């Protein structure tokens, strides 16, 4: 399988404190991977670096062999953990925006998803509820035919029904040849969709593997395994 993301000795320090500590990781094509860890484990830092929002203190990160830059950003579809669209913009303007900048953006798919959700494309973002704004953001992110989807806490802070909707949207709309990296600590909710998992703690990978294999080997769900692994560690 082709390696989509490769991190080598990746380190990020904030005022001397390591958020990522010499992290090595490879993610292969066509997998849905859970980046799992307690708060402050470095999940968001790692995803932001892959998206090009943070510069590493040391180490290297490549997406499909490209260093982080315009070429890698063209292949990555990133869903941040907050709404990042201007409140003044109309949904149609955002569709135009994505269409202009991303060659892999499928506008008709986005419009279909918006219609299915009953979101008026002529509405301004400020007139939509926070939940609907997040759905617009998810729709736009998943309407790209990207090589790598980086989803930072896509189900954080939403009700269980919305979680199911979001996960179904991800499953039904991502390109099967693409890789999806989902960062979350709500493991029981995402467990069913994951092919692989990566446990992150204090900026390091402490365990990773195939989700089905680990369930068979240990007889435990990922959620149970997570609780077991992280309860023994300090500051969790």
């Amino acid at each position: 399988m082709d390696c989509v993301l490769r991190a080598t000795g990746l380190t990020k320090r904030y005022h001397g404190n390591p958020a990522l500590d010499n992290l090595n990781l490879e993610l292969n094509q066509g997998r849905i991977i859970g980046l799992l860890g307690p708060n402050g484990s470095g999940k968001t830092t790692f995803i932001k670096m892959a998206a090009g929002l943070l510069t590493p203190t040391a180490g290297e990160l490549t997406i499909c062999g490209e260093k982080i830059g315009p070429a890698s950003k063209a292949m990555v579809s990133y869903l941040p953990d907050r709404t990042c669209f201007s409140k003044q913009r109309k949904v149609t303007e955002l569709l135009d925006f994505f269409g202009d900048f991303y060659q892999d953006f499928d506008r008709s798919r986005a419009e279909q998803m918006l219609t299915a959700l009953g979101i008026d494309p002529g509405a301004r973002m400020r007139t939509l509820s926070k939940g609907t704004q997040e759905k617009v953001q998810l729709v736009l992110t998943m309407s790209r035919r990207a090589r790598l989807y980086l989803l930072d806490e896509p189900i954080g802070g939403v009700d269980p029904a919305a979680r199911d909707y979001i996960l179904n949207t991800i499953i039904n709309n991502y390109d099967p040849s693409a890789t999806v990296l989902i960062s979350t600590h709500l493991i029981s909710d995402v467990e069913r969709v994951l092919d692989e998992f990566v446990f992150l703690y204090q900026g390091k990978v402490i365990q990773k593997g195939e989700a089905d294999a680990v369930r068979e080997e240990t007889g435990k769900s990922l959620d149970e395994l997570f609780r077991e692994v992280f309860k023994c560690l300090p500051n969790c």
Partner: protein
Amino acid sequence: MFTKLLKHEWRATRGTLGILCLVSLGAGLLGGLTMHYLIWVDTAREMQHDVIVVLSALAMVAAVIAVGAAGVATLFLLIGRFYKSRFTDEGYLTFTLPVNVHQNLLSSMVNSIIGMIIMFVVIFAAVMMWLFIGLSALEGFTEALRDVLPRFWESAHEVFEEFGLGNTALFLSNVLISGICELVVLMLSVTIGSIAAKKHKVLAAVGVYYGIHVAMSIGSAILSIQVAASDLGGRAFFCYTLLITAAIAVAGYFLMYWLMDKKLNLN
């Protein structure tokens, strides 16, 4: 990609810029009409409507303030757009676009320059409209205008001939480069303030802006003293100023580039 960035920068600011232009033109019209009325009542010696005269005078003051405020608001709008689209949550979208840092920076700079030029032209038009409408209350204004305008152009031509094409170009370059330098300093202050400060980023940007201007003022004073003590003429002084201003603008731009490329830290 650069033209697309520029298009979206323009789309994001054109609405408010349009409103500010209309405010300026409206203020110019209001100022002109009130000036016209005040001249008319003064020349006609019909001062019986004291309240209207006072209200007209107040309206004229309000028009002056509105024109000035529209100019300042334009600068705030453009720098505010730069800050908001790069260093707030909107930066998560801007910095994940498949564009390089030069394109990212230059699109904002070019859009800001275009916005400021538009506002400058509109304010000039508003002031001209104000004077034309206001002074048309004077008796024989049209005849005087017919007489004055050709003489004005004649004098302007004479001044231009005396000043020379080279000096005119140097002066205009100085004005343009100074404007761009000021814009770069503002954007650099916002960039440093946003990247360096954990909280109160705007306040930090204001502090940085103040600091840069203090440093620039000290540098400018030293340069002026040295030029005054030397045998340099006015033209050489203009050249020196132009070069130094351009150097500050270029250095500021590349510092901003480096910060965004190597030190970006959106949190």
